[in-house]
């Protein structure tokens, strides 16, 4: 019986641990992508710029519209959106990121600056979002 609990415990622990490890590594890569491609508009703490670039930190749009957010990063975004009650109507250019880079940067921005995402974004999920 002891052995059973031990195995169950280590299995659970390992699963959680490896998931966390995957997420950590993805977020680390995502942070580099963020510095490279996103920070000039969305700023160092994801605060954006009032009237021009929407915030990512505690952003209702980002946290509630997962597929739309992935779509925006993957293909660019044009047209009006509402973020935390404020309207934005700029152009976010297509950035030419790979599906892996999109997943990484999504994992980074949805787990930074007070955001928390319990379901890791996978490359498969990004690849299934079509234009």
């Amino acid at each position: 019986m002891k052995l059973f609990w031990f195995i169950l415990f280590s299995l659970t622990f390992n699963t959680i641990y490896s998931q966390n490890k995957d997420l950590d590594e993805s977020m680390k890569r995502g942070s580099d992508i963020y510095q490279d491609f996103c920070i000039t508009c969305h700023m160092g703490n994801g605060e954006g710029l009032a009237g021009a670039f929407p915030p990512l930190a505690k952003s209702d749009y980002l946290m509630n519209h997962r597929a739309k957010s992935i779509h925006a990063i993957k293909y660019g975004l044009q047209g009006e959106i509402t973020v935390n009650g404020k309207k934005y109507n700029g152009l976010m250019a297509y950035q030419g990121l790979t599906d892996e880079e999109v997943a990484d940067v999504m994992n980074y921005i949805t787990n930074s600056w007070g955001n928390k995402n319990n379901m890791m974004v996978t490359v498969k999920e990004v690849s299934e979002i079509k234009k």
Partner: protein
Amino acid sequence: MLIIISKKFSLTLETILYAMKKLIFIIPFIAIALSACAQQPESSVKAEDPIALTYTTEVIVSDIPIAWGLEFLPDGSMLITEKAGELIHFKNGVKTNIEGVPEVYNRGQGGLLDVKLHPDYKNNGWIYISYASPEGEGTGGNTAIMRAKLSGNSLTNQEVLYKAGPNTTRGQHFGSRIVFDNDGYLFFSAGERGDHFVNPQDITRDNGKIYRLYDDGRIPEDNPFVNTPNAKKAIYSYGHRNPQGMIKHPVTGEIWAHEHGPQGGDEINIVQKGKNYGWPVISYGINYDNTILTEITEKEGMEQPLFYWVPSIAPSGFAMVTSDKYPDWKNNLLVGSLKFGYVERLVLENNKVVKREKLFEGIGRVRNVMQAPDGFIYLGVEGKGIVKVIPN
């Protein structure tokens, strides 16, 4: 009684300890904030709203996501570069995509960038384009300059005149405006490709440079580093970050360029032979995470800008107004702001900025500004297209 006193005492002690703990926690932030302030003197002249604006804007060519570059052919039609890789010929109200445009590396800030006609285009037909190219050494892309001719709707006689290397997959800082000076030399800029500790100060490497070539791509014999071992011989000036606006001064013939700083520290510079413009050794900017990039703003052997912007406006596109269409703007500089979505008008006196004004605030990210042969100012506005500035 004693118990009560000691309880009181310990409470006070606890409060003090608590306050100290808080203070210790706050001190680094105060230090960062203070040093950041010390490091970032704001621009000496602030941008104002115009008192009375006698001009308005009109969209001339619509539905172009990012109209990066613009040129006017002798018949008055337009050549427009769209960042994703299309060269658009706009004539009599119709957009035609030119065929045979080279493959561009459309990633981050890279893509199809500037377009410029040879000063003697009427006789030789040469068109120059700058673009992020995946050709050459390494994965990714880097800035390239090509000249070609327009035959019908095709880009023919293509010659790559320069390709910066090595390639990198980073998203930042390709430059890359093209300008001819009065002697017919071709100048172009290439940003430092996001590798600021490696490229801008090293003249044996590309990137973070302004280059000078003959119009056919040959390297002028009197370029500043032709005799320096291992130097890239096409370099004219170095220590740049990301120049996305460059003009020939209409009166003096000098080459003037502006460039993006990091957070704060955008600059206007007069580009001079062999000079070092200091990035990233000196800068008026700080990192995006508010940490200090460099403690110094001046150093011997490094040029001071003619003007610097703190906070950054993210400048792109550059023009000096000389036409008689805008009498009250004569000899003023116009600069597009990607960050705040306006056109900045800068009034100069003896090469010093004495006044700044925000024009057309809210128009959108202004990627390009130029004075056309017809004397009118045209803008490239992201998400819109080509916009003309007209009297009210």
